[in-house]
C-alpha cells in the first residue's frame, strides 16, 4: 500500500494524507480496544475489591458481634463464679466458726474432766462441742453440694460460650461469603429470572454453569452456602461461583475467607481441680465420721466420770464416808477421764486435721491459676478437671482476611472455523483483591468491655 502511494506520488496530488489517516485509524482502533479492555479490567478490579471489602467488613462485624457476646457472657460467668464463691466462702466461714467452737469446747472438756470440781461441767462443754460439730457437718454437706453444682455450672457456661464462639465464627464466614458474592458484580452480569423450564418436564437441558447464568439461581446459591443450623456444618475454605453466559463464555468468581478458629481460651481457674476438691471433701467427710464417733464415745465416758459422784457416794456410804469418798472419787474420775482422753484426743486431732482441710478448701476455690483450654473434652464433662472462674482472653489474631479472584472469558473476535480460538481473543486477566479487617476495637474479653469493632487495616494496592 505504501509502495503504491510512493510510486504514484507524482501522478496525483490527491490522497497524500490517506496513508497517514489509515495508520492513525489503525492506531486509534487499537487504542480504543485497549481502552475498552482496560476499562473492563478496572471494572472487574473494582468489583473484586468491593467484594473483598464487603466480605471483610461483614465477617469482621459478625466476629466483633460474636466477641462482644462472648465478653458479655464472660462477665456473667465471672459474676456466677463470684456469687457461688462468696456463698461457699460464707458457708465455709460459718462452718469454721462451728468447728472452732467445737474445738474450744472439746479442749475445755478435756481440761475439766480430771478435776473433781469440774468433771460434770465437762459433759456440758462436750455436749456443746457435739452440737457445734454436728452443725459443722451439716454445713460441710451443703458446701459439698454447692461446690459440685458450682463446678458443673461454670463448666456448662464455658462450654456454651465455646459453642457459641464457634458458631459465631461460622456465621461470620457465611456473612463474609454472602457479602462477597453479593458485592462482586455477578448479579448485573446475569440474566434476570430463572433458567427456562420445559412445561411438565425437568429444567431445560442446561449444564450447571449455564443454569448459573440466571439471577434467581445465583440468589439461591448464595442462600445455600450454609444451612441455618450451622452447629454440625463445616464451612469450606473457599467458594466459587461459575457460570457460562449466552455466548458460552466462562466466568468465575472465587472467594476465600480466613478467620482463625476460636478454640484456644485462657481461663482463670480455681487453685484446686475438681478431683482434688472431691478428695478434700471426702477426706473431710471421713474425718468427720471419725470425729463424731470419737465424740460419741467420749460423751459416754464423760457421763461415766460424772457418775462417779453418786457411785462413790453409794459405795462409801457409812462411817468411813469421809475417808472413802474422796479416794473413791479421785480413782473413779481418773479412770473414766483417762479412758475419755483417748477418744477426746482422737476428736481433737481429727478436728485439727479438719481445720487444715477446710482452710485448704477455702483457699483452693480462689481463682489463682490460669490455664489454656484448647479443646473441650468429650463426653461432657467427664474429663475436664478445672473449676472455671472466667475467660481471661481468647487466643485469636482478631483478623479476617478475604481474597477474591475473578476470571472472565472475553469475546472471540473473528472466530475461525475449525479452530478453538478466533482471530482475536479478548480474555481478561485473572483479577485478585485482598482485604484484611481487624475486629479488636476497644473490646476486651477479660476486662468485660464489649466494644469489639471491625475496621479495614490492609488492602492490596490497586
Amino acid at each position, binding site marked *: 500500500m505504501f509502495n503504491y502511494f510512493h510510486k504514484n506520488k507524482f501522478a496525483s496530488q490527491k490522497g497524500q494524507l490517506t496513508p497517514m489517516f489509515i495508520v492513525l485509524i489503525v492506531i486509534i482502533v487499537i487504542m480504543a480496544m485497549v481502552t475498552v479492555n482496560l476499562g473492563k479490567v478496572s471494572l472487574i478490579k473494582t468489583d473484586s475489591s468491593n467484594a473483598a471489602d464487603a466480605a471483610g467488613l461483614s465477617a469482621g462485624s459478625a466476629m466483633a458481634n460474636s466477641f462482644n457476646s462472648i465478653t458479655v457472657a464472660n462477665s456473667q460467668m465471672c459474676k456466677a463464679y463470684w456469687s457461688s464463691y462468696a*456463698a461457699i466462702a460464707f458457708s465455709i466461714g460459718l462452718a469454721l466458726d462451728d468447728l472452732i467452737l467445737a474445738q*474450744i469446747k472439746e479442749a475445755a472438756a478435756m481440761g475439766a474432766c480430771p478435776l473433781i470440781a469440774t468433771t460434770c461441767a465437762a459433759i456440758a462443754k462436750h455436749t456443746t462441742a457435739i*452440737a457445734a460439730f454436728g452443725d459443722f457437718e451439716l454445713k460441710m454437706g451443703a458446701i459439698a*453440694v454447692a461446690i459440685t453444682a458450682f463446678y458443673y455450672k461454670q463448666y456448662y457456661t464455658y462450654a456454651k460460650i465455646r459453642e457459641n464462639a464457634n458458631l459465631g465464627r461460622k456465621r461470620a464466614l457465611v456473612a463474609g461469603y454472602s457479602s462477597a458474592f453479593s458485592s462482586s458484580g455477578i448479579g448485573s452480569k446475569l440474566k434476570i429470572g430463572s433458567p427456562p423450564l420445559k412445561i411438565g418436564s425437568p429444567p431445560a437441558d442446561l449444564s450447571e454453569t449455564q443454569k448459573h447464568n440466571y439471577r434467581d439461581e445465583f440468589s439461591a446459591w448464595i442462600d445455600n452456602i450454609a444451612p441455618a443450623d450451622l452447629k454440625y456444618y463445616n464451612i469450606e475454605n473457599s467458594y466459587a461461583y461459575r457460570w457460562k453466559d449466552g455466548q458460552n463464555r466462562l466466568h468465575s468468581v472465587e472467594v476465600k475467607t480466613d478467620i482463625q478458629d476460636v478454640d484456644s481460651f485462657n481461663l482463670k481457674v480455681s487453685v484446686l481441680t475438681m478431683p482434688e476438691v472431691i478428695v478434700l471433701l*471426702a477426706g473431710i467427710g471421713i474425718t468427720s465420721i471419725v470425729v*463424731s464417733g470419737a465424740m460419741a464415745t467420749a460423751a459416754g465416758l464423760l457421763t461415766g466420770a460424772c457418775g462417779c459422784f453418786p457411785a462413790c457416794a453409794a459405795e462409801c456410804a457409812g462411817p468411813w464416808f469421809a475417808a472413802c469418798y474422796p479416794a473413791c472419787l479421785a480413782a473413779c474420775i481418773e479412770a473414766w477421764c483417762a479412758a475419755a482422753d483417748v477418744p477426746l484426743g482422737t476428736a481433737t486431732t481429727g478436728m485439727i486435721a479438719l481445720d487444715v482441710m477446710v*482452710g485448704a478448701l477455702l483457699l483452693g476455690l480462689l481463682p489463682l491459676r490460669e490455664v489454656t483450654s484448647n479443646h473441650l473434652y468429650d463426653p461432657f464433662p467427664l474429663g475436664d478437671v478445672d473449676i472455671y472462674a472466667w475467660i481471661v482472653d481468647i487466643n485469636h489474631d482478631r483478623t479476617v482476611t478475604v481474597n477474591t479472584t475473578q476470571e472472565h472469558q472475553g469475546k472471540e473476535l473473528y472466530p475461525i472455523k475449525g479452530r478453538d480460538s478466533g482471530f482475536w481473543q479478548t480474555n481478561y486477566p485473572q483479577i485478585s483483591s485482598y482485604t484484611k479487617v481487624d475486629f479488636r476495637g476497644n473490646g476486651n474479653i477479660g476486662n468485660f468491655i464489649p466494644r469489639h469493632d471491625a475496621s479495614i487495616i490492609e488492602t492490596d494496592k490497586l
Partner: protein
Amino acid sequence: MFLRNKVIVGIILFLGTIVLSINSLEAGWWEDLSLPVPPSTQEVKKERRKLAGSEFTFIYYESSLGASNIKDFYRQRLTNAGWQEKNLLKEAGNIPNFQIDPNVANALSQNLNFEKDKERLFINFLPENFAQDGKTRFTIGKGETLKPGQAQKQDGGFGFELLDKPKKEVAPVYPKASLIDLSEQEHSSTLTYSTKDDIEPVVLFYKNNMANYGWNLIEEEPIEKKDFSTDLEKYDLAQVCPSCAKNKINLLKSMEMQFARLKFTNPGGDSCDIVINSMMSGEAGAGSLRFTNILVRYDEQR
C-alpha cells in the same frame, strides 16, 4: 422591707446548704442505716439464701476502691453501728496444739466477720486485680445465727437453699428438689437444683414431664458412670485424711459420679438442656455424700 428580703435570702441559703449536705451523703446511708455502702460502689445483685437453717441476705458490690479502703470503711462504720469484729484467726489461735497454715490464714484474712446480738455479718472479697477491669468485688452476707445444734433441727434440705424464685418457670421442678443457684439474663437462664434422690428417677422425671411445658426431647446422653479410683490413685489419701483408718480411706475410692444430659427444644426454637449429675460416696449414712444436682439451662431463640 429590706429586713424581710434579708430573711428570705437567709432562709434560701439555709435550705440550700441543707440540700447540698444531704446530697453529699452517701446514698447507701439513707437507704439502709444498718448497712453502709462505701463511695464509688455499686450494688450488682442481691439474693436470699437459707444456710443450715438460717436465712441470710447476700448483696454483691463492685467498687472502684481498693479492698483495704473498703475494709477500713466497714471496720469504722460497722463498729460505730454497734457491730463487733470477730476474728476467726484469733479464735483459732486459742485451740491447743494448732498452728494455722499461712496460706489458709491469708485466705481467711480476705474476709471480715462482724457480730451484733444474734446477727452475723460477713464481708467476702474476691482477690484484688484478678479481673482485668481493676474493680474490687465484694459480697456482704447478713443474717441471724443459730445456737449450736439448732441448725440440724431447723434444716430440712441441703443447707444451701436459694430463697429467690426464678422470674420465668421454663421447666418442671423435680419434687422436693431445692433451688441452690440461679442466673437469669434477658434471653437465657441457668438454674441448679439439688435432691437427695438418685439420678435415675430424676432423669425419668424430666423425660416424662418436659412435654407438659411444650418441650420435645431431641438428644439424650444416657446415664454414664465415672469411677474415681484411677484419679484418686494419684493422691496420697493418708496425707489428706491423716486421722482416717485404712479401711476408711478405701471408702474414698468407692466414690462414684454419674452424669446424664437431656436436650429439649420447643416449636418456637428455644432450647432447654437438663444436665444431671449425682455423687455417691458408696455407703449411705452420716458423713457420706449422696446427692443429685440438676442444671436447667434455657436459651431463648433470637
